[in-house]
């Protein structure tokens, strides 16, 4: 890589660093944000949105008006009012008694974890691929023609091979 190319590459870094900083800051704000105090109703809504209606397809207990969902909603209300269990423990308690898959969102363990891991893996592979492609394009800029390349060009021009290393006063290489 020439000195000029290296300088150009360095000049691009602040932009990338800024973007990286903004991305990290947004992720941190999103994950560490301390939400306002939740009321019992907020908790019930939040929990029932995570539980699947056991007899309907694709609906949460929060949305469904089915009797089974209404029963689960009531049970969640009772458990929240008791105040002994946190949200995850309430869901686990309900799941313990049920033969149906109650979790609307897949677990982060076992085979279910693939649902979370595969998109991340795909993202990593995609970024790695992009990185490789960019590197290849950058390298192409600095490419030095080989003897084979020169022979090809000469053949295309139909003339004699030109010695570009010691050009005469009249000779000029065009690409």
């Amino acid at each position, binding site marked *: 890589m020439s000195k000029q190319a290296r300088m150009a590459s360095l000049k691009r870094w602040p932009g990338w660093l800024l973007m990286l900083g903004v991305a990290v800051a947004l992720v941190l704000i999103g994950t560490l944000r301390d939400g306002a105090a939740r009321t019992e109703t907020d908790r019930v809504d939040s929990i029932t949105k995570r539980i699947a209606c*056991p*007899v309907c*397809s694709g609906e949460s207990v929060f949305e469904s008006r089915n*009797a*089974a969902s*209404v*029963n*689960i909603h*009531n*049970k969640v209300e*009772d458990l929240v009012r008791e105040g002994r269990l946190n949200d995850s423990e309430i869901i686990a308690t*309900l799941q*313990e*008694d*049920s*033969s*149906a*898959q109650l979790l609307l969102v897949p677990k982060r363990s076992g*085979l279910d974890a*693939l649902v979370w891991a595969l998109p991340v893996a795909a993202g990593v592979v995609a970024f790695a691929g992009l990185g490789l492609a960019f590197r290849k394009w950058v390298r192409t800029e600095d490419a030095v023609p080989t003897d084979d390349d020169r022979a090809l060009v000469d053949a295309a021009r139909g003339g004699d091979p030109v010695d570009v290393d010691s050009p005469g006063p009249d000779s000029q290489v065009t690409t």
Partner: protein
Amino acid sequence: MASRRRIAPWIALAVGAVVAFLFVILASAKNDTTETAATPLLGKTAPAARGTTLDGDEWDLTRRKGSWVVLNFFQSSCVPCKEEHPELVRFAEQQAALGADGAELYTIVFSDDSPEAARKFFEDNGGDWPVILDERGSIGVSFGVNQVPETWIVSPGGVIVYRTIAKVTADTLSAQVQQFREATQ
């Protein structure tokens, strides 16, 4: 170009492997819409179940320890429940004939049924065993009941030994209770 040709089959192979893997997962996945009588509660102590009978008396499952208990989850507007009811009447008669050894039958009224509708159903169709109101559905949720009818058998020790999500007949239910009774003697 040559290196590209060498990489292409490997990429195709990797994509094919991922697709095949996903296909195997989907093909072997459990169908969530299939109802099953399997329950994590089988062999465990029955969950707390308290309610009020149609007569206004307090009812608590734990106080039934010492007897075989049959719980039938029911709703007056449910067609299979209506079809099953004469069999439950016969089952109650069979168990009453056994005297103190007979199982106790209780109907748990599913939450979205009104007490008036349940009372009228029993007046019209017979059945003099206790009918428990589960107004907030807590008994149903504790037992993981999502649809009716369902029938459960609880041992004298308070352990769940049987669950069926199909309509029962008097003879099969009596035979089932007798089988458990003999197994524990």
